[in-house]
């Protein structure tokens, strides 16, 4: 109970918001809008899982939004050129893996600080994409949307994919040696090295894995609409960092649970529809997101202070 206190308090907040919505705006619970809300958040959940691992490893990656856009457009172009969908998905994951590995090489190989490295790659990928594509949308061929299934089946499949991935990763971080390495390196890289773990290899792998997850998420986003927006994924990095931090992943590294990230993401995802239902203007969304990030880190900061004093 005490070990899960942080996650449970977020879950309680989520329950409160859901209850408030049930009383004030029952329209929120109609099955169709709710299902599309969850489908929209499925790719975000995949990226948030990767971000949680990166932050647990005491790093950060703010280039995920740009990676997401590059993977989306690349996947769209390949699909438009008649590649079969499984191959397109694989290519998207590989593109993401390469971009993530590049970040990982700069951070782990050259020992550069991840915040500045990913700030640089964020702008580089985004501007390169804008330069090459001039903001054009990519039209996808028939049969790409929802992978050629019905909309309901497609939506369910995306949600199930995201949840299965979440459960698999949650189990892996708890029970696999590779998962524990991430916590060990995030807690104390030097101690981890003395215990026989290779911290730089772990950091590199986490970044590369993050990229691969972004590639997968981009594909999950591409199949949701008949066109690919070259601006997709802008602001994604803040959204997933917010989800991870709200969900109890400590920015000082080494602490956090993936199911907490899931609850954190659901809480954030409810905010935007809650704003509409409660008739607050949508322009406040970004400010509220920033305030929630600050609130979450302040809560952790106050708790840490009490523990150390």
């Amino acid at each position, binding site marked *: 109970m005490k070990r899960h206190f942080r996650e449970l308090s977020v879950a309680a907040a989520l329950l409160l918001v859901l209850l408030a919505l049930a009383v004030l705006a029952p329209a929120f619970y109609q099955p169709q809008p709710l299902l599309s809300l969850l489908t929209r958040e499925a790719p975000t959940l995949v990226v948030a899982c990767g971000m949680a691992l990166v932050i647990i490893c005491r790093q*950060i990656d*703010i280039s995920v939004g740009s990676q997401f856009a590059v993977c989306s457009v690349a996947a769209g172009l390949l699909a438009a050129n008649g590649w079969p969908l499984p191959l397109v998905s694989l290519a998207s994951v590989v593109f993401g893996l390469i971009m993530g590995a590049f970040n990982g090489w*700069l951070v782990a190989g*050259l*020992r*550069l*600080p991840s*915040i*500045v*490295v990913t*700030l*640089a*790659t*964020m*702008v*580089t990928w*985004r*501007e*390169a994409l*804008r*330069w090459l594509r001039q903001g054009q949308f990519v039209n996808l061929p028939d049969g790409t949307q929802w992978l050629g299934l019905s909309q309901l089946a497609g939506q369910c499949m995306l949600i199930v994919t995201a949840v299965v991935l979440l459960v698999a990763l949650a189990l892996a971080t708890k029970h696999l040696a590779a998962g524990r390495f991430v916590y060990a390196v995030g807690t104390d890289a030097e101690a981890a090295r003395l215990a026989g773990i290779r911290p730089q290899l772990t950091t590199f792998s986490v970044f590369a894995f993050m990229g691969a997850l972004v590639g997968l998420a981009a594909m999950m986003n591409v199949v949701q609409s008949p066109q690919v927006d070259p601006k997709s994924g802008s602001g994604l990095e*803040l959204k997933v*960092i*917010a989800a991870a*931090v709200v969900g109890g992943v400590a*920015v*000082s590294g080494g602490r956090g649970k993936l199911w907490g990230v899931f609850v954190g993401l659901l809480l954030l995802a409810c905010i935007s529809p809650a704003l509409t239902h409660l008739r607050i*203007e949508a*322009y*406040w*969304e*970004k*400010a*509220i*997101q*920033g*305030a929630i*990030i*600050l609130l979450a*880190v*302040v809560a952790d*900061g*106050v708790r*840490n*202070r009490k523990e150390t004093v």
Partner: protein
Amino acid sequence: MNTEKHGFKAALFRHETVLLFVVVLEWFYFNSVGPRFGSVDNSFDIMRHSVEIGLLALAMTPIILTGGIDLSVGSLLGLCAILFGKFWRDVGMPIPLAAACTIGVGALAGGLNASLITWLRLPPLIVTLGTFSLFRGLAEAITRGVDTFTNFPASFLFLGQERWLGIPAQAPAFIVVAIGIWLLVHRTTFGRSFRAIGFAPEGTRYAGIPVERRLALVYVLAGMIAAIAAVIYTARLGQAKADAGMGYELFAITAVVLGGTSIFGGVGTVQGTLLGVAAIAILNNGLVHARQPREVAGMLTGVLLILALASSILPKILATWRARRQTSLNKTPVTT
């Protein structure tokens, strides 16, 4: 600690000298490519466009010296520009009072960063990432994403668009801030303490320096300078919009790192930052004259930042490689 060699040869290989050489090279290259690049008008244009980024870079220098970072300065510029317009148009303040209030808001916003970083000992990275989102979000919420402030009086636009004593009117403000920051960093005990904090915060505390107060000072100062930049930005463009200064934090950080300040803190100079700003401003302007699309400039800035970072740690990497080779040569069986 101070192992710098004096004399002509050492000065030739200093980071700033190399950077100055690069800036001059850049200038001559673009001068040969773009026919109008070298004109006096264009030089003033470069100066005008680099003032806001230059101010943010100057504010960022002491922060990075202490080993911190401030990602929120670009967003704060946007928020301050909006509030400046609001104070002037909707509250009805005269321009000087509105500008003073804006600087006050900047100080408050910097104070928010500072208090979270120093009282709760939170990492600057995540705090300013949160305020990055908060400040920009507030700017969007206040204007509802569409409202823009225009029709400023000509006497105010003079500050951003006209010349005063033959130079761009905003240049004197920039020079004053630059001299102020240079004096603070290089000629006071405060500047010494910033470097000390960057090297070892705990050690600095034991040496009797109030680390928290010094840190709070640099973040509040950054907020105030971002507000000044917002006023100048509004005067230059003649309008204030919620997206003002978007992405400027990247340019500012790039200028500082390019100028030889270590991203890990402890090492760096203000004159290096100024050269870094010049290098970026000339690159941006020159690419337009060389008929390259605007995106290329943004892309190259990102690449430049990675290269500058990589080159700054090159000596460290070489040293570790050498050390590793040494240890593998003298390897003895480990018995423990």
